[in-house]
């Protein structure tokens, strides 16, 4: 447990150093002139440089950045002067969490349905149809699908009965208006989930088919257990081990900001959008905070996957 924690910290330290160095290796990265404003005098530039510690050596700058991010918590943006980074990340987190969690529910249910139907009717028209559907889902890029969804629901068909209910793009907090929250997120959920539903359906199908060929399934059937029980209690439980591993990594990355494209397209100001804007502006403090936030969730998700897999599969305990 302790080694795992230390290893995780080491990974995050490595990532932070990498982000820091890439930033300073980027041409035109020096933020002083952008901070000081167009045509600022040499004196103003020097003052800004000093204020933001940009006149210090790189290791000192790294130390200051980490200190202000993790200990003092008063790290501010280099683009929107005065904008505190930690509260900005904390405010964006629920948006991404809502998006990723809702989409996960959708794609798990859809993936389960696709996988079960396809595996139960292996080789049939049904199998081919749902597999093809899954493939389509995997192949459509989310930014394109999102724009098309917007084009239809916000623009071309916005005034028809079908999409009159679609609210303006943006996020409504869950505790402020639960119905508005769900209504606003429904289309982003479906858009984001489509890709994963296809992937999960296919993964589940192949591991179910593999499970059906195992001895213990034949034994279960020989004992006269009902088919649905064989599938759900025996085959599915084993097939889920693979799905859980996949899910853990996916959801970790998504909560950490992997929903970036969906957020940008649907105007959701989550972690992904924050990262996107910060990258466009070369806003090192914000980039650093969001990247570390993302890597934290990936590390956390890995640990959670191990625990769940141990619960599902006694051999891994």
């Amino acid at each position, binding site marked *: 447990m302790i080694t795992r924690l230390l290893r995780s910290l080491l990974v995050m330290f490595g990532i932070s150093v990498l982000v820091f160095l890439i930033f300073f290796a*980027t*041409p*035109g*990265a*020096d933020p*002083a*002139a*952008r901070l*000081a*404003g*167009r*045509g*600022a*005098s*040499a*004196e*103003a*530039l020097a*003052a*800004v440089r000093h204020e933001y510690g940009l006149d210090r050596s790189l290791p000192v700058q790294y130390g200051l950045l980490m200190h202000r991010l993790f200990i003092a918590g008063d790290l*501010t*943006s280099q*683009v*929107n*002067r*005065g*904008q*505190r980074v930690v509260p*900005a990340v904390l*405010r*964006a987190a629920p948006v991404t969490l809502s998006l990723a969690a809702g989409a996960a529910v959708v794609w798990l249910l859809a993936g389960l349905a696709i996988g079960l139907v396809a595996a139960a009717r292996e080789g049939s028209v049904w199998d081919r149809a749902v597999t093809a559907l899954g493939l389509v889902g995997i192949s459509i890029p989310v930014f394109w699908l999102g*724009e098309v969804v*917007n084009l239809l629901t*916000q*623009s071309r068909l*916005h005034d028809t009965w079908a999409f009159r209910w679609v609210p*303006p*793009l*943006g996020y409504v907090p869950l505790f402020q208006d639960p119905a508005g929250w769900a209504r606003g997120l429904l289309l982003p959920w479906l858009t984001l989930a489509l890709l994963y539903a296809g992937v999960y359906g296919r993964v589940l199908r192949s591991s179910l088919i593999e499970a059906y060929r195992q001895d213990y399934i034949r034994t279960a059937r020989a004992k006269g257990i009902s088919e649905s029980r064989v599938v759900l209690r025996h085959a599915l439980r084993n097939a889920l081990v693979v799905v859980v591993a996949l899910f853990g990594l996916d959801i970790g990355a998504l909560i950490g900001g992997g929903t970036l494209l969906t957020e*940008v*397209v649907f*105007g959701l*100001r989550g972690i992904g*959008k*924050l990262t996107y*804007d910060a990258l*466009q*502006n*070369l806003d090192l403090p914000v980039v650093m905070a969001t990247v570390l936030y993302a890597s934290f969730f990936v590390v956390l998700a890995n640990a959670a996957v191990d625990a769940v897999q141990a619960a599902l599969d006694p051999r891994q305990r």
Partner: protein
Amino acid sequence: MLALLAAAPASAEEDRAALMRAHRGGTMRLLAHSAAGTIDPQVNYTAQFWQMFSMAYDGLLAFRKVPGPGGNEIVGDLAEAVPAPTDGGLIWLFRLRPGIRFSNGAPVRPADVAASFRRLFRVSSPTADSFYGAIQGAGACLRAPAGCALEGVTADDAAGTVTIRLSRPDPEFAKKLALPHASVLPDTAPDADAGTVPLPGTGAYRIDHYDPGDSLRLVRNPHFREWSVDAQPDGFPDAIDYDFGLEEEAEITAIQNGQADWTFDAPPADRLAELGARYADQVHLNPAYAMWFLPLNTRLPPFDDVRVRRALNLAVDRRAVVKLFGGARLATEACQVLPPGLPGYQPYCPYPLDLPRAQRLVAESGTAGQTVTLVIDGSPVARAIGTYMLDVLRDLGFVPRLRSLSSNVQFTYIQNTNNQVQASLTTWYADYASAGNFLGGIFGCSAFRPGSDASPNISGFCDPALDVRLQAALADPQGGAELAAIDRIVTDQAPAVVLFNPSYIDVVSARVGHVGYHEQFRWLVGQSWVQ
């Protein structure tokens, strides 16, 4: 006749009062792709927030808040009138209007004015030197901002006056006093960039809340009483909500749906046809004092040779470039430095499209075969123009390369001489309507600072004698002809390829009425209504 003249303003006032009764109230909903940085009016240097500051803050003087050319007129704001400077233009005596209060309830005193000018230097405002460097004591304040005393600005609270002493005459000083960086703030304002914390002001609105990751909200200033409809008019909407975060595509859709009233960002090119055909009434086009141009580095080969610079000017088909930008309604071809409408503007174009002549010039210079790298930003229009320029450079016999940088980095990158940029594509929007802003601001010696990211003279073009002539022409009220002559000289020297003068496109929702375009602050948001 006299009676008629006297009656005119009264009826205008009555009209305005009637309009106020009919349309006052509601919330204006604005959009922008992203916020524009600090909300400190003395530090922020963006057109996006200057538009907001014009409704929330006042200086001693102001641009007249009317649509059309009248908007360039300077009027008294917190000061009763625009004073005539004495002592050869060095001493400016302002008498403050009595009874004006900040949005926190505190009265505006001469001491606040003096403190605000000191603060300008203490917070290292980007224009502290370029706009206000003529004030006595500015030099010391620039060197040591923390203890800035700025003896050139003195306040007399008893008399209600402020005196500003300059160390050299500045013909554009009145305009500079009307810009947001010269806003008057309470003397309790912190001596540091306020960041995201709104400072009290005197305008018709006060900034209620600002979160760069989310929104900006302006509400009515409870202590505001309209003292001059020209300087700071009362507004129609009760509140102005400014939301950040949507992509340009989604912003236009939201306006079409009536979910928002306006966007700061230009609409994407693929939506222009639809806007023109179906929403023509809601689209407002106004020429900006601005240009798109290619600065050519006069200190690096091959553009250190004036023949090569002229050749490139002759080889560019400006009509084609305008098409790439969106067509003739959105931009006007140009090949001179001054844009139309500015003092000294006289149409001049020594560079009609002439590829054979251009090729001859390059052949004479012996530079054919050299590599030329053009640095552009990543916007779709810049990429289109950049790709076109590759063809032009190839036609001239160069080996062209295109380098694309993120939009937010490119502008500082191309300014720094250390980056050895030969040619780049960029834009210049005037801070205020002034020929000096173009001729001196981009091609003056003082705007060239080697090794600095803040060196707007990207071409490195510097002619000290011309600078002297420019200062004299700017100081002379009848200097128009001289400015035109200087414009021609700079254009002939070709330190850049001027491409076109763009227009601002404002798309408003169907419910917005009384849209007026101001030469300095673009759309006068508070002077339009939503109900």
